[in-house]
């Protein structure tokens, strides 16, 4: 498996009760790349991520991660991935440390390994001093950082980040950016979705824009902007609105 094809998404489809949510999506992600997946509500981003991360059955097509097929070897794929869902998938009654240790142990780590990895991750997201406090008492931004820290418990090679900065203050957001860039510099591959275009512009080497369950554009932010004028003056939001239109999207 070449580094250029660390993740291969091939003609991926998902049909829910006759409705096609994802319709023949294909792209590849290089090892060590932050790959952006953008699109309006209902474009099929989260469905695509859920299929790629083995939590939603694939209707057609396939995804390979580090050479393992999601359809045929989901357990092998899970060993390579970490998932930070859009929702705060946390146990609010437990402390940050307990949350991380629990998910780490579910990943197969021993108690000692999980505790060590948890403290390392909490330091990474700047929550060491709050490790033993219940998550219920955390601010939105802190919860987001715990959400991210859990996804890193198995030191994944591929990290799925589904809108990781929703509802957080600029300080927490910048902390999350710094963390993601640090992970990339350490060789981690990241699939990143967001509605904030400036985030994608700052973090992603390449971006796929989805609409109606399909990929309608895929390139570097610079090249996407260059399609519509001077890349120094055109914003990614301009590109996004030109490609997906101004019609309101209410679907989740």
């Amino acid at each position, binding site marked *: 498996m070449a580094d250029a094809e660390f993740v291969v998404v091939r003609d991926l489809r998902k049909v829910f009760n006759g409705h096609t949510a994802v319709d023949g999506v294909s792209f590849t992600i290089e090892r060590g790349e932050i790959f952006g997946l953008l699109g309006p509500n209902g474009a099929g981003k989260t469905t695509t991520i859920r299929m790629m991360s083995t939590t939603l*059955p694939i209707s057609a097509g396939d995804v390979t991660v580090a050479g393992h097929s999601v359809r045929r070897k989901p*357990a092998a794929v899970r*060993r390579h991935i970490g998932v930070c869902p859009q929702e705060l998938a946390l146990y609010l009654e437990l402390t940050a440390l307990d949350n991380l240790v629990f998910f780490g142990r*579910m990943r*197969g780590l021993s108690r000692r390994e999980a505790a060590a990895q948890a403290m390392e991750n909490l330091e990474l997201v700047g929550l060491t001093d709050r490790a033993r406090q219940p998550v219920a008492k955390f601010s939105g931004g802190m919860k987001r950082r715990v959400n991210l820290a859990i996804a890193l418990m198995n030191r994944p090679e591929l990290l799925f980040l589904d809108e990781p900065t929703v509802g957080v203050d600029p300080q927490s957001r910048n902390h999350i950016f710094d963390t993601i860039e640090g992970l990339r510099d350490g060789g981690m591959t990241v699939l990143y979705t967001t509605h904030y275009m400036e985030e994608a512009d700052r973090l992603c080497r390449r971006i796929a824009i989805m609409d109606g369950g399909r990929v309608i554009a895929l390139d570097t932010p610079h090249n996407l902007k260059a399609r519509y004028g001077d890349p120094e003056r055109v914003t990614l939001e301009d590109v996004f609105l030109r490609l997906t239109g101004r019609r309101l999207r209410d679907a989740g």
Partner: protein
Amino acid sequence: MTRGTGSLWRQAGLLAGKDLKVFFLDRGALAFALLFPFVFVLIFSLIYGPSYTGEDRALTVYLATAEGPESISQDVIDALAAESRLNVRQVDPHEAGRALAAKSIRGYLFFHEGFTEAVRAGEDAFITVYVNPEAQTVRAALMSLAEAIAAEFRSYRVTLEALEDLLAAAPPGVRDAMVKALERGGGEGDGPAGAGGAATDAGPVIVFESVGDIEPVRTVDILIPAYLTMFVFFALALTAETLIAEKESHTLERLVASSATRGSIVAGKIAGAFGRGLIQVVVFWAAGLLIFKVRMGGHPGAVILVSVLMVLAASGVGVFLATVARTKKGAASLAVFISLAFAAFGGSWWPLFIMPGWLQTLAKVTPHAWANSAFNKLMLFGATPGSVLPEMAALGFFALLFLGLAAWRFRLD
């Protein structure tokens, strides 16, 4: 054990441990499961008073037979009268009927004419319990005594049939030796072999380990197991809500992405619920014994076993409800409805033995009824573990049924 199943049980254990930790951190859930029930116990203890039926003196068991002095029924009465813990009085059947009508006695147990012949012929032999409908305790005590007598005869009959088969199959020399040995045993009248009357002329020797140790029914001896049953099912039915909360908060999805399998999640959820139920059982019986001075009867081990089987059945019901409901609110509503309806119907709000017979029969569709019946028999009427085997089997059946349904219906998406 394969690596896969090892991983499954490890993950199930971790999930159960996490659920227990969350349970201990949730003060509301703790109070509801462990403290709230005792508020009920206290309130109803005050309402009913220390004795459930107001019968504050030891009961006298009145026995009557239509047979003569050489009959098996008379031997049974004599054996019961010889039991030092029983307050037994033999009465003439006609006098007993008149006394019951005049309400000077509250009930009696009657052996019909032909009882001895029926027993010897291996046919149905009848015992009738006559009781004042208002005397619930007497009715329950006499029913329990009659059942115990019938159970003894059934077990002797099985033993005799087995012995007959054995004798028929034995070589002549061995058969003679066995017959002599049995005759010696029967002549001494100290064992079940001589009891049925079909093989020997010796009268029945009925051994009562605790059956018939009849005392006034204490309110707490009814309330503690009744509310244990109700609140174990109630708390574990609310497991459904926590499982759906895992779906709604996407922690379930995260578990799947963390390599947790459907099997490990179902097993973990059931184990977590089972653990919470066991904690309730420990707290209930500990508080019952230490604070309320509950009497668990002659076989506390059997009471604990019934409690454990009940928790297993309740765990199955809880996880099963999670596969039926779609939202947390739906699960909570369903849990409340099922728990309260089953509790009322199954004898947790009032003793089963005061309910009309047809309602007692109908109540058997609920696991509560079987659990409460077993607790009442063991704790109030001194039954032996053997006589609550049907209740234990029924609770085991409910556990298997609901655990099976839960495992079959549980979906991750």
